[in-house]
């Protein structure tokens, strides 16, 4: 076990996910972290996307050309920011090198890939954490406290929304092969993870409908952009999630996440990205959104690094990532079956 005074070696692997920049900025200046980055798949991205050494230079991060070099450096931990479909290979290589793994969400694009990642990390004795930053929001802590204290009574159900602009700046997000789907794959998992933590129960029935009305004429978008997912949990809670990319391009902020939970004690609704100052800027023509919520990425990284130092199991671990991926897979199966109810085997 690394002593707290020894800096942890952390490698950010791939810049495919835009969060890579946020992680680098948070890790770069920490005295307790040594940072290295690699983005060997940069050449597979469209030429107008800043990737690879240019991205590392922009963010002031040390860079190597290959994952092999990054792993030979002997990192204590890696953060996997590859395209969703490439998480598995990167995570398996990291586990084989003995590095703990924080993996962007969704954990993988297929359940069997996530299972392989779990097995590899378990076999290597390294931690696997899924990057669900909303878990670390103070708003969610409040909600969780109200559920756990019994103030909300028996949970009847919930309505979750994770609406955002159609992802831009990284084309793979709207490529169903690399992303694992569209809005369903991108936006169901955050809400599903919060419910997973809140209820501690498996989803026993999932039903989803989707459409591609939003951005239907955008040639880059080849997957669903709108979706409603109905989830029944083992204890009987009935949930509906709106995962649509329904925030217009001109909106003042990217989108957000809300979770409204109703129990016999009443209803609590959280809006973890809602704290903001609004108004107009840019000569009065541009709607303003000055968000001042907690930096959830920072809270999440703090938790992960703490787990790496102590060996404690991280909050949203690989198993949480797998359970939520199973919900997405069931939703996709439901859509493929024309809206049939899918009952995932637990």
């Amino acid at each position, binding site marked *: 076990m690394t002593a707290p005074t020894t800096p942890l070696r952390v490698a950010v692997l791939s810049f495919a996910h835009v969060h890579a920049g946020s992680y680098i900025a948070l890790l770069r200046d920490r005295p307790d972290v040594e940072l290295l980055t690699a983005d060997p798949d940069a050449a597979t991205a469209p030429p107008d996307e800043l990737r690879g050494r240019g991205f590392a230079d922009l963010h002031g991060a040390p860079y190597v050309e290959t994952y092999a070099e990054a792993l030979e450096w002997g990192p204590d931990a890696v953060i996997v920011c590859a395209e969703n479909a490439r998480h598995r290979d990167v995570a398996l290589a990291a586990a084989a090198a003995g590095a703990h793994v924080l993996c962007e969400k969704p954990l993988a694009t297929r359940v069997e890939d996530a299972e392989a990642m779990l097995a590899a990390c378990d076999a290597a004795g390294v931690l696997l954490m899924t990057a669900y930053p909303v878990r670390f929001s103070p708003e969610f802590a409040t909600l969780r406290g109200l559920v756990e204290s019994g103030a909300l*009574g028996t949970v009847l159900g919930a309505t979750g929304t994770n*609406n955002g602009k159609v992802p831009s700046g990284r084309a793979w997000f709207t490529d169903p092969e690399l992303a694992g789907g569209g809005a369903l794959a991108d936006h169901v998992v955050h809400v599903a993870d919060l419910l997973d933590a809140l209820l501690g129960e498996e989803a026993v029935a999932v039903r989803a409908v989707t459409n591609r009305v939003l951005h239907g004429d955008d040639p880059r978008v080849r997957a669903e952009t709108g979706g409603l997912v109905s989830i029944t949990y083992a204890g009987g809670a009935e949930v509906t999630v709106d995962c649509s990319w329904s925030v217009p391009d001109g909106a003042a902020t990217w989108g957000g996440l809300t979770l409204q939970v109703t129990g016999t004690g009443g209803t609590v609704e959280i809006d973890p990205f809602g704290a903001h100052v609004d108004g107009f800027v840019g000569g009065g023509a541009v709607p303003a959104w000055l968000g001042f919520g907690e930096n959830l990425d920072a809270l999440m990284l703090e938790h992960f690094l703490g787990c790496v130092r102590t060996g404690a199991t991280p909050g949203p671990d690989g198993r949480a990532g797998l359970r939520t991926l199973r919900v997405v897979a069931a939703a996709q199966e439901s859509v493929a079956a024309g809206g049939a109810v899918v009952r995932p085997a637990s």
Partner: protein
Amino acid sequence: MPALPALPAPPPLTVGLVGAGGMARAHAPAWRALGTELVVHSVDGAAELAAAHDGRVAASFDELLDVVDVVDVVTPTPTHLEVASAALAAGRHVLCEKPLGRTAADALALLEAARAADRQLYPGHVVRYFPEYALMRAAVHAGEIGTPAVLRFARGGAFPSWSPWFADDARSGGVVLDLMVHDLDVARWVAGEVTSVFATRRSLEEDGAPHTLAHVVLTHAGGAITHVRGLWGAPHTAFRTSFHVAGDAGVLRFDSATSGGVRSDLPPVPTGGLARPAPAAGESPYLTEIRELARAFAASPTALPADHPLRPRVSALDGVVAVELAEAALTSIDAGEPVAVDTAARVRELGGTPHPPPDTPALAAAGSPV
């Protein structure tokens, strides 16, 4: 929404309120504001209601039928069929509180009774008259948000414990038929005809208090999908409605909890209290509704032709389809599976014109279908 033609005040009507409960108390002031003469018949509370609204009491339903032009049926849901069909058979126009019937068969029987009697029958789908919903619908149908894609509607409050029949699913149809029928109707009004209904519900009683939360997901013929949430919740729950309507060229949203020009800090609604949705702005939506219906009633002693300029924005056929959607939702809850419907075919079968999808250019030009 197309403006109503400027008209002289409708000739005075005599209206018979059958029932003297919460809805009667909401309707009576609206009728009085229009100069209507009120006659009340109810097994309970008729004298108090009549006294409060300057009306008189009819000793029997038959006596009421003898003296009125219009019957306003504000009785518990399972009695709608009997009361409204008797009124129609007696040659009276009818405003029947929603849901039009306890079952789709009841609602359909009323539609047929109205046609047989050649009288006007409208369901009390008052949400179509709330300004926020009316404005949203008009904007959507004017193309302001492009093609509707994903819609969310929510409506909820304390479990209605002020009258025991609400808690009896056999009589009220529960939260799906009694409360969510509003948003099922509005969803169809906004996003067009429906092809699939899926619903889930959790009901439980804790410490003697019943609770029900239900979700309905609709798939529309034009491709849009809609989530409707309904809550009969804990006794302190404040009544709240909201919508979020996203299209490929914009989003419209409303939440009664954060809208309106009044902010108050008052004690919670007392347990068992009768909460009513406050209008977001302006006059009571019940008055807006009843004014539009009163003009239609006054325009003709018989049914109005489909192209009549005073046809209200809601029809008996809409009331039938709304109950059929609620019934499909209840079927889905029981079966745990989605239920295929075809409201467009159903509307045609019943002699109506289906709602075209809202991005149809012809529609934007023509205004709202009846």
